[in-house]
């Protein structure tokens, strides 16, 4: 694994999903990885700004990419939508918009060559699995974990091309390396509904409930997602989703790096396991994590 990255946390890791940042940073520290936050990074547009003002979104991401490129490091993000927006922006810029963007970036003394790599933290952890697996001190052998990839982790495959979008295995690989058992649910590659939770609230809640109910039926102890937006939807909105769709068994939802942190024996409080809407204590009781 590369040891130093230009880290793009994304807005929610500084807000409602702070525990995703805390756990990512804690895991990185334990694994000897340096996540250097990109100074001055901005919102990626979250696919929403792109819809009403694509040039503003493209320029904001050209700036984000230029800031990372200036650090001479690979950009890594812990959010799937950020990863997609940044990778999509890079592809668009390299496809004939680079000069246009650079004329404007010059106003802030920036220049983008387009050489910066944009990676999802999941990909780095899956690639580095053999290296860090040896550091797993608290194998989570009691946990049956249902992976939930999140749309933007794998789609569209033209942009998110790390692994097969039809049958990705990176999350399963991480789960096994943590000593836990992956449990497949039909919603593994489905949408959580997050991006339309306001305009299509009922649909979003039914999608969320569907994943939660399947995980409960499959006997999973928790859902695991590499995307903090999926996490917000599956965890924060889970009570609303279950009441919309008549589910009665709440299922805790872990961030990717929280499972890893538990397997590395990191303190539960330090990785924000108490900052969840759906209680994560049952996971700790069976896992034996401190």
């Amino acid at each position, binding site marked *: 694994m590369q040891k130093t990255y230009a880290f793009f946390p994304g*807005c*929610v890791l*500084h*807000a*409602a999903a702070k525990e995703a940042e805390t756990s990512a940073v804690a895991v990185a520290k334990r694994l000897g990885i340096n996540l250097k936050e990109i*100074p*001055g*990074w*901005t*919102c990626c*547009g*979250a*696919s*929403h*700004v*792109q*819809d*009403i*003002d*694509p040039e*503003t*979104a493209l*320029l*904001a991401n050209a*700036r984000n990419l230029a800031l990372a490129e200036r650090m001479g490091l690979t950009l890594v993000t812990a959010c799937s939508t950020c990863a997609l927006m940044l990778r999509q922006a890079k592809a668009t810029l390299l496809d004939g918009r680079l000069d246009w963007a650079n*004329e*404007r*970036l010059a*106003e*802030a003394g*920036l220049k983008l060559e387009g050489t910066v790599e944009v990676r999802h933290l999941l990909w780095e952890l899956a690639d580095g699995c053999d290296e860090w697996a040896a550091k797993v001190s608290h194998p989570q052998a009691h946990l049956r974990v249902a992976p939930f990839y999140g*749309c*933007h982790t794998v*789609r*569209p*495959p*033209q942009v998110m091309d790390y692994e097969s*979008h*039809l*049958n990705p295995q990176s999350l399963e690989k991480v789960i096994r390396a943590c000593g836990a058992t992956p449990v497949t649910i039909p919603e593994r590659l*489905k*949408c959580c*509904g997050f991006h*339309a939770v*306001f*305009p*299509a609230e*009922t*649909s*979003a809640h*039914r*999608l969320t409930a569907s994943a939660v109910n399947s995980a409960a039926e499959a006997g999973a102890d928790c859902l695991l997602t590499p995307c903090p937006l999926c996490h917000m939807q599956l965890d*924060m*909105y889970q*009570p*609303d989703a279950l009441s919309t769709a008549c589910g009665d068994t709440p299922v805790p939802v872990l961030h990717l790096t929280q499972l890893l942190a538990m397997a590395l024996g990191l303190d539960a409080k330090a990785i924000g396991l*108490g*900052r*969840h*809407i759906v209680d994560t204590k049952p996971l700790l009781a069976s896992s034996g994590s401190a």
Partner: protein
Amino acid sequence: MQNFIFLIDRFDGTNSWRQRYEFPHKPGMTVLTCLIHIKENLDPTLNFTASCRSAICGACAVRVNGNALLACDTMVDDLREQWGDGPLTVSPLGNAEVISDLVVKWDEKVNRLRLANPGLHAKKEFSAHEGCRQAPQDMQAIQKQWDCILCGSCMSECNKLSDSSKDFLEPFTYTHAARYAEDSRSRNPLEHMENMEKSGMWKCLHCMECVTKCPKGISPAGAIASLRELAFKAGHTDGPGPRHADAFRTDLENTGRLNEVKLVPRTEGMVSAATKRLPFTLRMFARGKLGPVEAARLFVADNHRVEDHDGLKRILKANRK
């Protein structure tokens, strides 16, 4: 090589069942040549639709292992690379009513397509005598969308449509609306957008299944985005969809980052934020997802501006000159 095994979802109008067919592997076979082989040699009762065998007519789209593809344009050996040499499950397109076996009903979908007002109503400066001139770059802007062959692959795994088709259309309908709305020759682009706005345009989940499944590389999600942009620029800025998007843009410009506390009132209004969303807010406080002091600060003031926020403003200003 091992024999091909197809498990085909059958339906005779009353009963449905999954039927197994096994036949010898031959290199170079497409899904369609396999279906034809089954019908001609193993089971003449199997129903499917196909015509051109050249990925032009769009008649032969089916699902293999749950994912839509054009049967005539997909080599079975390629599918084996993805799924292994075991049985392949072949089903009719998703989000469609099945008539028989792999044949789905299109009547209602074509009626819904009419909502896009498909057809070009040219600007007044054009005439039958002079024709409709278009600059190459303007043609390129809509060229991709014109490749749509109405195969239905984009609708098959659309997550929004799977939940409900009452408030959302087949993704290709938005593609068709966008290709007229974005046409530089179009007299009134809004006439193609307005029905889409009433029929789910802001309810797309961004699941990206349509982009992923289109055999022609078209992005119906991109078409939806361009229709949203058209609507927004035409002043259609009310409603949770546009207001939500605008809240993100406001935060990006004002401080650089999202203000989650202001997001709900900006999207739904203060009344909804203070009443409907109250239980949600209270449990956020109770579980420590959000601190009341931090929430109050974000509501009254805002996020701190990002480093070199002035630089960001200059970049965006330069683009608006």
